[in-house]
């Protein structure tokens, strides 16, 4: 269990290591709330599809597994889309096309194929939640960085997620004028690149430290 969590949140993070689902990752992360909204939607689909795929893993022959996975994922995404349109209408208007596009997020079919179809339901569900959380965290951090640099705020637009009377906006750099590039598409690439670099640096530091502590143990690469 601990290993599954570690894989999803850090070692095999969908956004930073597997680099899957980049299209929505780069497109919607102009603010924390947008990132959180898409992250939660993806998390839900990922957890539900992992659970379903695991439950039917002995029923479905391997020749037709891909179409079956696609059917499951597409149905779940449509359910999420309709639910969001009904209960989080403003957020849906902002995220727009990227909600239905969750269907094409490779993280989801990737986990169905690589993990859920080979593991028991509880483990598959947990893996889905952890992978979803890992993805959501990257969306939040990237969204937060870009929002802060580009607009000087954090958590603007929280009413779209938490109801009309909630205003959590933190204005950190008052005055208009932010670093516009951060909000434009190139800013998304720069931001993600820096995050990946940061993660790799931390990994290398920790590796060096553990090698120094126990020189006989070689670090084992996890297969992607």
């Amino acid at each position, binding site marked *: 269990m601990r290993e599954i969590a570690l894989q999803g949140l850090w070692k095999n993070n969908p956004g930073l290591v597997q680099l899957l689902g980049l299209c929505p990752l780069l497109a919607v992360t102009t603010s924390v709330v947008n990132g959180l909204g898409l992250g939660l939607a993806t998390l839900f689909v990922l957890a539900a599809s992992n659970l379903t795929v695991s439950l039917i893993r002995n029923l*479905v022959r391997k020749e037709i597994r891909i179409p*079956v996975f696609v059917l*499951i994922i597409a*149905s779940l995404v449509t*359910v999420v889309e309709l639910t969001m349109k*009904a209960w989080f*209408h403003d957020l849906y208007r902002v995220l727009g096309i990227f909600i239905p596009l969750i269907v094409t997020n490779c993280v989801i079919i990737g986990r169905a194929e690589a993990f859920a179809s080979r593991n028991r339901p509880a483990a598959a569900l947990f893996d889905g939640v952890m992978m979803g959380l890992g993805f959501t965290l990257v969306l939040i951090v990237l969204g937060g960085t870009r929002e802060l640099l580009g607009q000087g705020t954090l958590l603007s637009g929280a009413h779209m997620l938490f109801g009309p009377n909630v205003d959590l906006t933190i204005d950190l750099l008052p005055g208009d004028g932010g670093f516009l590039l951060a909000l*434009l598409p190139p800013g998304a690439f720069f931001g993600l690149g820096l995050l990946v670099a940061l993660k790799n640096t931390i990994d290398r530091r920790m590796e060096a430290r553990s090698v120094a502590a126990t020189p006989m143990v070689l670090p084992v690469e996890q297969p992607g």
Partner: protein
Amino acid sequence: MAPSDRFSRSMAMAAALLAGFAVVGTALVALTQDATHQRIADNELAYLLRTLNEVVPASTYDNSMFADTIEVFDPDLLGTEEPVTVYRATREGQPVAVILTPVAPVGYSGPIRLLVGVDANGVVTGVRTVDHRETPGLGDAIELKRSDWILGFDGRSLSNPTLEAWAVRRDGGEFDQFTGATVTPRAVVKAVRDALLYFEEHRERLLSGDPGQSLDVTSDIAAEQDQG
């Protein structure tokens, strides 16, 4: 059992299984659709009404504005080859204002879709940007949430300022341009002016003509989203 028999049996099994999942998936989507469609329609109507009320305040009229619409067509003044929807506000049966939905065709990057509210005397009650792709940080100051520039049209009419002064300052007019962006405000000023000219020409028909086609509001919004 002959090998070909086994083969066709396993194919049939696979097909049946696949069909089974398709049925379950479709049922799930259908149930959700059934549970949410009323709420979604309400949301979309509320959104439309909220936008319309920004341009013509709810306190000034008493009809269902979104249901009292006519379709007009004038590519020169309204900026699009498509029919343009006009929403009409009345109070106790008397026309109060109309909301035109013209397009400024020559924005910096593509068309800018607007709502222009005009009262019965030809005075602007409000202008809002519905949809645009102008440069973030420069041209997007036409959005109310970025700057209050768009409020500068409130209370204007074809005689205030005069027709020649309906332009940005750089062109000798009365409206501010933005630092680093002249094309966007120029396009919007021209579109609002043209909408007023259109209103002037067709005032009677816009204010009190019979409703041409009453649009299905929900499908109209869906069509807009498809384009976006």
